[in-house]
């Protein structure tokens, strides 16, 4: 299980949940679901693929929650301009950085450049806010990100324990899984 990034698994589960409404979700799922994702899905018993995906996700989340905790210091792997050129689904480097700080799923920001542009702006705002409360932003591109955060946070941040991506996970995956009632027993 350690071989899957929680970001890849989140993408896979979200794409599965979005298949009915989002035309590119199925296509995305086929690209996201590598052998490790498929193995994680098949490790969970049950007839319903979405419920299995939910359980597999929560299982992985349980083991890798540190990956989603806000760190004391973070290194920006690319500039905002570099981020605007993200074109392939990858769960490392720039794409992951924009996903975790811009609170957006990687596949969505690859497929939709409007979402990408917004995620980049959101990431800049979030980074600036976390920096204000003591996180260090490192690397040669750190000032590019901080100077992009010109607009004030439209909403007060309440919880800086997690990276912003966790809010996405809670709203779009955990609450949906809760509706599918697949998660409750795993989490208790």
């Amino acid at each position: 299980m350690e071989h899957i990034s929680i970001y890849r698994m989140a993408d896979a589960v979200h794409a599965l949940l979005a298949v009915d409404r989002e035309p590119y979700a199925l296509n995305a799922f086929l690209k996201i679901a590598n052998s490790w994702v498929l193995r994680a899905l098949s490790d969970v018993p049950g007839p319903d693929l979405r419920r299995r995906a939910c359980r597999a996700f929560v299982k992985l989340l349980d083991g890798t929650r540190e990956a989603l905790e806000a760190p004391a210091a973070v290194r920006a792997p690319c500039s905002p301009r570099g981020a605007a050129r993200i074109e392939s689904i990858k769960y490392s480097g720039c794409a992951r950085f924009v996903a975790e700080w811009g609170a957006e799923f990687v596949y969505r920001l690859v497929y939709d450049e409007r979402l990408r542009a917004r995620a980049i702006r959101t990431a800049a705002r979030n980074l600036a806010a976390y920096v204000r409360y003591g996180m260090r932003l490192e690397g040669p591109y750190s000032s590019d990100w901080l100077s992009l955060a010109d607009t004030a946070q439209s909403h007060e941040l309440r919880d800086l324990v997690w990276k912003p991506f966790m809010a996405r996970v809670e709203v779009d995956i955990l609450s949906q899984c809760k509706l599918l009632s697949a998660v409750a027993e795993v989490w208790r």
Partner: protein
Amino acid sequence: MKVDLIDVDALAGLVGGERVLVIDPYPEVVPTAVEDKLLYLSSSIYGGISPLPLFSFSKGEARYLLSPRLHKSLADLMPGLKALYIEVVGEPQYPFTAVALVLSDLGINVAEAFLREYVCPELAALEEDDVPLARAIRSAVSKYLAVAASSPSPRSIRCFCGLCEDRGDRLDLDVLALDLKRRTAPRARRRDGLADLGEEDRAIVLRVIRGLSIPEFRRELLDLLNRYEV
């Protein structure tokens, strides 16, 4: 009721006025499913109009305006987006409840803080589960967009406010959220309003917060407060 079509880009002018209270009923993080739906409904085949009405009314001395936060974020993704600006003329009846009902028609679960602060006090005064203003807004909006009345009745919001017998399964979600928070070892400093307090006061407040996360303690405390009508 006055209905106008306005450019979302021109919203700043509305908000800038004096004694305008901006109320934000939207959840902090909008689910992608809701956002996708709103984008679809405001796409060009529907005339580039946001299905979220902007809503304004006067009550007492102040003028209230529904927060344009979500409109702005939609306009970010769809330049040239227009919004329906609905102004209630005269004394509004249960305006916050009406807003909550219309937004749930659109599939938006309004923020709990909004329900607690604005809607619950109205519901406590509302005798029949009927909000004519909600019907009026629906019919104004549906001249432009087909919006079906699918929202939960005021009764189910009542339950959220603790004004009904059946409290449903709300508690489970709270437990889940608490669990998620409790299992972490916080690294970045959490922002809380406690920084201004002295050491001793902060310790007391934190102890109470810890106590509240224990369901039994919380129930007992609420019972006590209710019994003495606090």
